[in-house]
């Protein structure tokens, strides 16, 4: 197996161990004085109301959605950018067509005010 890949795997394993130890350690080291008041959700001292796990705004989903579309676009930009100099004008135009179509989607999202936070 090539060394760079080995480095990624070994380092990933080490980072996971680092995080796990970091998150487990306070259980054994820190003091433990549990209490009912202490274990309530913190809302600046006010008794909490409502359930935070109920539905939030769909607006967040819009941003994730638009992000995903343009993330896929960016993914196609990278292999093109690598061969951009060899591909010449033709390759450039091919990518501009691709971008142009997706720019329509961006324009639609702007027009329908999906890019806005209200």
């Amino acid at each position, binding site marked *: 197996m090539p*060394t*760079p*890949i*080995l*480095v*990624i*795997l*070994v*380092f*990933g394993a*080490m*980072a*996971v161990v*680092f*995080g*796990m130890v*970091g*998150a*487990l*350690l*306070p259980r054994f*080291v*820190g003091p*433990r004085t549990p209490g*009912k008041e*202490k*274990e*309530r*959700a*913190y*809302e600046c001292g006010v008794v*909490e109301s409502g359930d*935070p*796990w109920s539905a*939030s705004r769909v607006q*967040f989903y819009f*941003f*994730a959605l*638009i*992000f995903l579309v*343009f993330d896929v676009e*960016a993914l196609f*930009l*990278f292999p093109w*950018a*690598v*061969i*951009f*100099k060899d591909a010449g*004008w033709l390759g*450039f135009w091919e990518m*501009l067509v691709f*971008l142009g179509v997706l720019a329509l989607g*961006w324009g639609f999202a702007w027009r*329908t*005010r999906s*890019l*806005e*936070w*209200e």
Partner: protein
Amino acid sequence: MERLFIELKSSLIDLAAWFGVPAGWLPLLSAFLSAATIMAAAPVIMMYQTWFERKVVGRFQDRYGPNRVGPFGLFQPIADGVKALQKEDLVPAKADKLLHFLAPALVVVPTFMLFLFVPWGRGMVAADIDTGLLFFFAFAGLQAPIIVTAGWAPRNKFSVLGGLRAAAQVLSYGVPMAISAVAVVMAAGSLSSSAIVEAQGDNWFILTPWGAFAFVIFFVCVVAETKRTPFDMPEAESELVAGFHTEYSGLKFALFFMAEYMGSFAACMLATTLFLGGWSGPEFLPSWAIFMAKSGVLFFVMVWFRGTLPRLRIDQMLGLAWKFLFPLSLVTMVAEGLWYFLRTDGRMAGAILWPLAILAVSYWILSVVMMREFVRGNKPRGKQDAW
């Protein structure tokens, strides 16, 4: 000095071979050595980042900053770590206990991974693969789901909202960040970070007309990605207490803090690699020292932002990403294409003028549109639209 770390590593491997470690395991040893070095270096860098930031912001605000523990307060980060360790591990009664444990444990992992793909010096990329740059962006994006989980686990209103906001911010700024890097990839013709540094030589990409634009876009996005001021509204204490890490105490909080600072330094390192010529510089200095110095200067700029700029509102923040930086990054990419084609055609004058003209016009149009949107956004709107 130049090859200090490389020689050290190869002599350690030779030593292991001499002691009779089978040849099949030597690559693993080599990988382990690189990994362990970075694993040790990154937290130390992070500790002195916090010290540096507190000192500098202290000066901005006309105070001393930490100066009690050790000379110039140099041991302050260690004292902070010990203090975090002594805190009680609070888990809210209603929390999802498993996720409350997993989120802080995992949040550092993708941030650590970022350091593998930057060239710390000449020939010092830990994982020198063809697609290193793409891996950097991929791991930077992995933060988002972990942050949502971290906010979700403790079942607290503020942290749920903070987590969702932070994730929306990380996602939104990830796109212009990647696209502004595409312009660099076009010029360098490679996704490998060491090849990008070598492609620049002494002609740093920031000195080209498109490069200057791309650098500014990239740096703004990077500041937002790492949730630093002026984009720190996921942690806006005036509205959301402490954002997604409200309910984490002691070392668990320290892990989030660590992920943030390490991420910001890794991002400075990547910006140096892409636009500031990486480790290239005067010959008499070792390449890794030059690289660290350049990254440190960029981190100073981040601290400068923090000392100077007020926080953006969430609508302004998202608008800036999608209505301004995103189209501008695409235009930058096209300008880089024009620049290259005109130069290969031998029209040097046009090569400077056309890209600059395109960039300037689109910058002007976009900023005018943005300003109008902001002015409109500041007025109370009559009818709330269904959107």
